[in-house]
C-alpha cells in the first residue's frame, strides 16, 4: 500500500526542495550583483575620465614638500608635480639622476647606456635602459631618451626623460613602458641650496590607472623626501659632473 505524502499531487516544479533551487537563485543574485557592479564601475570610470580642471591643484604640503596634481578631462591618469629645497650641488643631483651606477639607490637594475648622442656644450642626451620591479605587477622595462640642458645665465638645469620604446626590440622578460615624460628642474639658489621641481607623467604597464595615480602621487612625495639624505651621502656630496657649471653668487 502506497503511503501518501504531502508532496503528492503537487506539480513537479513545485516539488523541488528549497535547497535544490538555491544554486539557481544564487546564480541569479550573483548575475544581478555583477551587472550592477559592472554598471557602477563603467559609470564611475566615465565620470573620472571626463573630470578634471586641467589645472595644477595642491594635493600635499608636508615637511617642506609640496605636491600638485593635474587631471585633464579625457585622461585617466593624473600628472604629478612636486617641489622642495635641498642643500646640494648640481653635480650630486646629476649623478643621482643620470649616472646609471646610481640605479642602486633608486632600486632599479640592469641599467645601461644604449647610445650617447653627440651634443653641443651645455646639453647632454643619451638613450638608456633599466628595469624596475613592482611587486604583483610585471617588471617595468624603461627605454628612455635622457637629456639635459643648462641655462648659461642662472645655471638652472632641466633634465627630461622621454619614453623611447622602439629604440631596442621588446624583451619578453618585462613590460616596456611606452608613456613617460618626466622632468626635473634644478635651480641653484644662494648658500648651496637647490630648488628642485619634479614632474611625472607616466603610465605603468599592467597596473590599473587608479593605482598608478596613487603611486605617482605617493612616489613623488617619497622621492623628494629622500633627496636630502641621498645628497648627504659621500658619493653625491663629492660628485663631479662633466659640463655642469655650479652656481656662484659672485
Amino acid at each position: 500500500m502506497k503511503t501518501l505524502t504531502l508532496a503528492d499531487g503537487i506539480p513537479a516544479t513545485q516539488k523541488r526542495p528549497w535547497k535544490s533551487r538555491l544554486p539557481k537563485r544564487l546564480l541569479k543574485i550573483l548575475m544581478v550583483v555583477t551587472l550592477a557592479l559592472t554598471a557602477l564601475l563603467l559609470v564611475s570610470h566615465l565620470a573620472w575620465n571626463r573630470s578634471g580642471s586641467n589645472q595644477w591643484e595642491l594635493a600635499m604640503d608636508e615637511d617642506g614638500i609640496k605636491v600638485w596634481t593635474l587631471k585633464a578631462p579625457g585622461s585617466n591618469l593624473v600628472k604629478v608635480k612636486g617641489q622642495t629645497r635641498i642643500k646640494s650641488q648640481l653635480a650630486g643631483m646629476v649623478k643621482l639622476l643620470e649616472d646609471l651606477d646610481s640605479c642602486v639607490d633608486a632600486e632599479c637594475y640592469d641599467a645601461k647606456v644604449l647610445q650617447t648622442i653627440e651634443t653641443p656644450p651645455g646639453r647632454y642626451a643619451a638613450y638608456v635602459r633599466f628595469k624596475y620591479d613592482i611587486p604583483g605587477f610585471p617588471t617595468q622595462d624603461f627605454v628612455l631618451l635622457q637629456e639635459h640642458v643648462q641655462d648659461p645665465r642662472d645655471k638652472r638645469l632641466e633634465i627630461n626623460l622621454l619614453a623611447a620604446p622602439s629604440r631596442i626590440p621588446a624583451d619578453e622578460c618585462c613590460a616596456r613602458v611606452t608613456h613617460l615624460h618626466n622632468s626635473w628642474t634644478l635651480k641653484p639658489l644662494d648658500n648651496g641650496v637647490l630648488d628642485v621641481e619634479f614632474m611625472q607623467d607616466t603610465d605603468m604597464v599592467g597596473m590599473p590607472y587608479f593605482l598608478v595615480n596613487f603611486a605617482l602621487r605617493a612616489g613623488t612625495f617619497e622621492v623628494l623626501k629622500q633627496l636630502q639624505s641621498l645628497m648627504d651621502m659621500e658619493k653625491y656630496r663629492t660628485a663631479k659632473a662633466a659640463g655642469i657649471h655650479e652656481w656662484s653668487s659672485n
Partner: protein
Amino acid sequence: MEAQVANMAPRAGVSDARAQASPGRWGRRLKRALIGVSAVVSALYAAEWAWIQSGSNQWELQQDERGAQIYTMKSPGSAMVKIRGVVQSKEFSLSNHLAPFLDASIQDDCAKWVEGCIRYQVIKPFDPRTQSNVTMWTVAVFPPFMPREFLLQGTLSQDPLTKVVTLENIAVPNKLPQNDCCVRLTHVHNVWRYEPMADGTIKVEFLSDLDMGGSFPKILLNLGAPGEIHKMLTVDNPKQLRQEKYRKASLDFIDEGRPGAVQ
C-alpha cells in the same frame, strides 16, 4: 445582448491576462537582454585580454607591393602593433628626404603630408646645435572622436661611418599646456632611418609605434595603419619630395657620402 456580453467577457479576460502577463514578459525580455549584454561584454573583455597576450614579438611581412615592404610586430602585453615600412630608391638624396623636416611652410598645407591634418605648428624651430626641433600636428579623426595632437620632439643624428641618418620623433606631451579641443598623444616613437647603400640607392625605413589615446579603437589603427603607411611610402611622400624646393635642398650638416668613405 447576452451573446454580446458573452463575447465580450472572454476578451476582457484575455486583456486582463495580458495586462497581468506583461510585466512578466518584459521582465523576461529584460533578463534576456541583460544576459546578452553581459555575455557580449564578457566576450569582448576576453577577446581583448587574448589579443593583448598574443604576439610572436617578431617582424612579420604583411605586404610586398610596388617596391615597398610592410611588416608588423605584435608583442605580448601590448594592445598595439608596431609597423615597419621599407622602401629603396635612387630618386632622392639624403638632403631631399630630410628637407621637409626643416620646412616651416608645411604649416600652410599640412594635410598634404598627413591625412586629416588640420594644423601644424613649429613650436621650437630646428636647432642645428642640438639637431632637434619640437612640432605639433593636429589631426582630425572621424566622429565622435576628438582631434589628436601629436606634440613631438624630432631628433636627427647621422652615423659618421655608415652615414645612416636617423630621425626620431618622440612624444613630449608636456612641452605645452593641454588644449581642451583635442586628445594629446602620450605614446609616440616614430623612427625614420635613411641608409645610403653601396649601389647608390637609399634604403628608407619607417617605424611607427604609437597609440591614438583616449577611447579610439585600437583595432582600427592596427588594421588600417599598415595600408596607410604603404601608401605614404609609395605615393604620398614621393609626390611631395619631388617638389623643386626639396629637390634643390642641400643640408650642410648632412654628409651625403657613401658608407665607409674616408673623409
